[in-house]
């Protein structure tokens, strides 16, 4: 059975993987702006990451302010949840 902390780390890991693909394709497209396959690939990952970011925001609080509409909590988790430099918590 997975501890709640592990579920959070797994979601964060998946978001990290999707975020990496997006950064890499973004920079590639800057010098290859007519590569349609690369644009489709990037769009696919942007959709997946947006979905994952929404799910994370609902469970643990937003990772970016644009997901602050997905938090039903009665606390401003952006400020009260751990910061990235704290490491595993």
């Amino acid at each position, binding site marked *: 059975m997975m501890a709640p902390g592990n579920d959070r780390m797994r979601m964060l890991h998946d978001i990290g993987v999707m975020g990496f693909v997006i950064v890499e394709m973004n920079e590639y497209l800057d010098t290859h702006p007519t590569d349609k396959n690369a644009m489709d690939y990037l769009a696919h990952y942007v959709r997946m990451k947006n979905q994952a970011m929404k799910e994370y925001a609902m469970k643990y609080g937003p990772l970016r302010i644009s997901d602050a509409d997905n938090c039903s909590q009665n606390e401003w988790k952006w400020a009260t949840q751990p910061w990235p*430099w704290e490491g595993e918590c």
Partner: protein
Amino acid sequence: MWNYEKRLQFPVNIKEPNAKLAQSIMSQYGGPDGELGASMRYISQRYTMPYREVSAVLTDIGTEELAHLEMVSTIVHQLTRDLSMEEIENSGFANYYTDHTVGIWPMAAGGIPFSSTEFQSKGDAITDLHEDMAAEQKARSTYDNILRLVRDYPDVYEPIKFLRAREIVHYQRFGEALRIVQDKLDSKNFYAFNPEFDRCKS
């Protein structure tokens, strides 16, 4: 305009403090080939870059470098957060501690403070892109040096290895950007005019 995501680009979870390693790795935050200088270099150069694809490269890589200086700062923070007074005194960290306690402050491994003299924004597309390619290689060499120092510390090794790999990708992108610029210039003389200043456009 920028947006922040409250996560690291690559995870950093260091269990044991180590002031000696922190002092070396700190250089990739505020040293001569560090991430702070890298970000400021690209973000400064983009305003007068006359080709939009190249401005895109400068903007996006300059932004990624901000995520890298956050990773380097995190590594330094996690290597120094639980230090005992004895460790501070015996590890050569006392000089830093005197001025900054264990706060994060941009300086080189040898103690020289961060300075904008460590990068250039020349206002000449060919010159700046050569500087950018050299900067990526200098940062790659520094990460290679750090990797030798941290070979027995996997928690530190993995994020440094990730950062080293990004230097190589960025070198590739800047090489492509230089080719985009040269393709738009006079192929008989790339230096016939400066496309960031002279008004005769191709």
